[in-house]
């Protein structure tokens, strides 16, 4: 009794009940397809979130003022810059020696000797809710940012139309501005804004560029923004006080953590922070954010896969059920086969092969459906098929066939011929 022979018997058994075999396979197919598809959706979601975060700027660290004293709330997932805070319980109220972030700090960070991992440094001042007008149209700009040209690259804000401002413009404190899509639409509508003059809180600025649309980022509209040279904003709107942020771009993804260490060292020295004293600034690490989000999405993907795995399990139980029915229905046939000399192994092999075929063929169809389904956008997510999920789902479906088929097959094989023959 060769393996080919056993497979032929099994195939014959399955074809004798096409509808039933088909429905059983459908159960496994749905399970396998669900695993592949849901894992792909999870992966797609993870990829899209990761790329959204990357859009915020790659390899960037944001240094900002740490306000207040000991009771200052530590933001959720706050940057690693808050490490090593050995704050004394009694220390409340603003520290007298707290220093604000200054342009000099920014220049110190740009020192290639002290901070070799830093690629660019952009000092930033932000003026919130500034009213801009153009020929009677008025719009309150969410954020007016005064900075250096390197800011565009560090925060990944390319222009769609027009150009950027350059270092010369910064030195000359020229009143020029690059505006976001929301601002452009509110003030200009369909008119081309390039070269036109708008008035921001009474100060005239010339529009030189329009940013590419970034899409909404949380509650804040990422396109409701205007970016101008740092001194221009300081002169006319914020004054030459402290910086709100210093955006630092590291050389590459691997040097982000090194850059963070260098920034910490430089600022600690400049701000006179030693030992256990808590720093008066904080550093937000984009990479750390990405990791946090990625692990959250990973959990989400595992959850989806678990749901899919349950449906695969249900499919497996379907196989057991149908095999039990088959064995019961064919008890007499099993008796005949045993009476003419079929060994226990041959009977076991035949029914196990039937169960395995059901699950394997169902699994293959499931892979086809899963991969095909992954070509479509589902709930706004473009699924990304994970090859290991295909292997896993197929492997599991095969194992399910063997495992769930073994009980009915064993029962068939163990029947005594006379009992099987008497069965009606």
């Amino acid at each position, binding site marked *: *009794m060769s393996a080919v022979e056993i497979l032929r018997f099994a195939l014959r058994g399955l074809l004798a009940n096409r509808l039933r075999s088909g429905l059983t396979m459908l159960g496994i197919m749905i399970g396998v397809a669900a695993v592949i598809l849901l894992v792909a959706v999870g992966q797609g979601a993870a990829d899209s979130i990761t790329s959204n975060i990357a859009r915020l700027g790659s390899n960037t660290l944001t240094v900002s003022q740490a306000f207040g004293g000991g009771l200052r709330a530590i933001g959720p997932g706050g940057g690693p810059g808050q490490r090593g805070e050995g704050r004394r319980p009694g220390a409340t109220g603003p520290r007298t020696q707290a220093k604000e972030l200054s342009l000099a700090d920014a220049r110190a960070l740009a020192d290639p000797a002290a901070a070799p991992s830093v690629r660019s440094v952009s000092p930033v001042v932000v003026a919130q809710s500034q009213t801009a007008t153009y020929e009677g149209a008025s719009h309150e700009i969410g954020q007016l940012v005064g900075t250096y040209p390197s800011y565009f690259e560090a925060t990944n804000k390319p222009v769609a139309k027009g150009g950027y401002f350059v270092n010369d413009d910064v030195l000359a404190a020229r009143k020029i501005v690059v505006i976001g899509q929301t601002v452009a639409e509110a003030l200009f509508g369909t008119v081309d804004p390039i070269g036109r003059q708008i008035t921001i809180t009474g100060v005239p600025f010339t529009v030189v560029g329009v940013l590419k649309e970034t899409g909404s980022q949380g509650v804040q509209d990422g396109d409701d923004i205007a970016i101008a040279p740092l001194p221009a904003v300081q002169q006319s709107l914020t004054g030459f006080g402290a910086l709100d942020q210093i955006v630092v771009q590291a050389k590459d993804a691997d040097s982000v953590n090194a850059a963070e260490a260098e920034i910490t060292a430089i600022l600690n020295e400049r701000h006179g922070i030693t030992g256990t004293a808590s720093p008066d600034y904080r550093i937000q690490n984009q990479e750390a954010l990405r990791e946090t989000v990625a692990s959250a999405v990973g959990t989400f993907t595992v959850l989806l896969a678990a749901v899919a795995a349950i449906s695969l399990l249900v499919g497996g139980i379907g196989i057991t059920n149908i095999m039990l029915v088959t064995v019961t229905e064919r008890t007499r046939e099993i008796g005949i086969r*045993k009476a*003419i*000399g079929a*060994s226990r192994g*041959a009977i076991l092999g035949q029914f196990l092969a039937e169960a395995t075929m059901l699950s394997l063929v169902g699994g293959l169809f499931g892979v086809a459906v899963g991969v095909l389904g992954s070509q479509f956008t589902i709930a706004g997510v473009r699924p990304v098929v994970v090859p290991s999920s295909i292997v896993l789902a197929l492997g599991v479906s095969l194992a399910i066939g063997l495992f769930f088929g073994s009980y009915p097959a064993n029962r068939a094989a163990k029947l005594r011929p006379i009992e099987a023959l008497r069965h009606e």
Partner: protein
Amino acid sequence: MSAAAAPPPVLDVRNVTKVYGRGETEVRALRGVSLTVERGDYVAIMGASGSGKSTLMNILGCLDVPTSGRYLIDGTDVGTLDDRQLALLRNRKIGFVFQSFNLIPRMSALENVELPLAYGGVRPAERRRRALAALERVGLAERVHHEPNELSGGQQQRVAVARALVTAPALLLADEPTGNLDTKATADVLDVLDRLSAAGRTIVLITHEDDVAEHAKRVIRLVDGEIVDDRRQVAVHEPPPRLRVTAGAAGTGVPE
């Protein structure tokens, strides 16, 4: 190990009993049956229903196990065999013909006949050749590709006979082979059995019809699980008494 002894009898049943159920519901189907059947014999076991003849047949065919007693086929003690060896024994030494044919549905006559050979590990080409030869022997050479539901009862039973003898077993067991057949089909099947007997095959059949029993060389009567009569009609080496002599081959019309 007795030197120059005759080959062991094909069947050697020693004081076999079979009890179904327990206590109040105990039924003693066989109450100590002893029986030997020599090679080439043609035995009919007769008895009313409930006489234990089917129970005996199932034990002879290794489909059931006796409650006590020994049973040897071709000198092999069946009681000592494990599951796998029993399967091999059923495959090689015994051909079983059932009252209700018991062909496997949705398999052609040829495939049904090939099945024991498949389980016996015979190669496909050889299997086909032997199955076709067996079908020809029962006169069904033209219907090899028909499925059981396309065959008449007599034809189905002849396929079953072909399946039983295709492995060239030492013993052909037939459990009321004509019980479900009309007169014409009965004659056909018995004719096949007679000719097999004439060719030297050992046959044990069960029946409750005297007409059928008359074909055998030896008739055993079973009443309430005991042998009450053992009558020899024809000597073992002679042809069966009702062998139909085909025209042109008078006397020695032994097909082979």
